[in-house]
């Protein structure tokens, strides 16, 4: 599955929800589908999108928070799974696109290419609901099910190591930061 197709399939579920995404291809492909003020693109600090999502989910328990993560990023902060699992916010959905590659920095293979099993690590860390979805349709179904379940969920989706031609986004990161904060302030009221 192409990640771009996966994102397109779940975009209707993302467009009105708080979304925190990692940098690189995921950010660029989500942006190209249509930027929203409720989308935050973490353009650096690899591994911390899920920690940010946890901070938002704990701060805004009435809102659903969706994190778009990647294998390279998650492998840099595996402890995040045990921390999320410890607090189990039911309003947090953690989607991991696993292309077995550090695509944005030259395509070097990650440890998932040699057998590291992120869904298994999530389960063993105590994440109460872990799903695997490797087609756009099954991912859409998994996202719908996870959001309806009010249970902390990690979904791991294997995708091809193919990204966009350009990672350019016409959105300065501080503009995104202040837009996103204003959106969160609005939904907090």
């Amino acid at each position: 599955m192409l990640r771009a197709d996966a994102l397109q399939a779940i975009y209707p579920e993302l467009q009105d929800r708080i979304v925190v995404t990692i940098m690189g291809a995921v950010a660029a492909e989500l942006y190209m589908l249509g930027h929203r003020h409720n989308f935050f693109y973490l353009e650096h600090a690899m591994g911390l999108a899920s920690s940010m999502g946890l901070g938002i989910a704990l701060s805004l328990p009435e809102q659903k928070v969706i994190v778009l993560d990647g294998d390279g990023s998650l492998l840099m902060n595996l402890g995040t799974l045990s921390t999320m699992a410890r607090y189990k916010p039911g309003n947090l959905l953690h989607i991991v696109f696993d292309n077995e590659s550090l695509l944005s920095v030259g395509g070097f293979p990650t440890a998932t290419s040699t057998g590291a099993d992120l869904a298994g690590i999530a389960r063993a860390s105590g994440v109460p609901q872990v799903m695997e979805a490797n087609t756009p349709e099954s991912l859409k179904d998994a996202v719908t099910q996870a959001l309806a379940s009010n249970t902390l969920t990690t979904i791991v989706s294997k995708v091809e190591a193919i990204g966009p031609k350009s990672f350019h986004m016409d959105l300065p990161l501080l503009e995104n930061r202040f837009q996103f904060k204003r959106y969160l302030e609005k939904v907090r009221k």
Partner: protein
Amino acid sequence: MPVSVHSSKLIYDALKACDVRIISALPETWLVHLIRMADEDPEMTLVRLAKEEEGVGISAGAHLAGVNSAMLMQNHGFLAAINPIVSLALLYKIPLLMLISYRGHMGEKDPWQTQGGLVTEPVLRALNIPIWHLNNRSDIDRRLKDAQTLAHASLHPVAVLLSRELMWED
């Protein structure tokens, strides 16, 4: 354990007066009472971390969501969190209220703490992070409030260094 309950309570009350609602922490000897107070307070969300860098993400998320947070860590934990401090907090102008136990400084008996003690202030200065030393009980309320005020006004991290004089009763 000669960690000061009295000073810990004053610091905890000062954090409450700053309307801090989320505290992230990793255990360290000087912080045991503070972490216990946060854990026992139904108004506080205590996030026990696997590694300090997660705390930068949690505080960033909380700030964007309009919730005041604080980070409790040892200075070695601060050293472990430098990349997220740079590439999340400084890059995205996120205020962080970092309470850092200043191990390895004057009076330290544990040899393994001493290198971290030597580099803590130079690293903070290199990152252009303002430093407040908490040495006296009489300063705690004012200094924590002022640290938080500067963090929010400047959208920048601040460091409050918890001293041995305050935290340890020999």
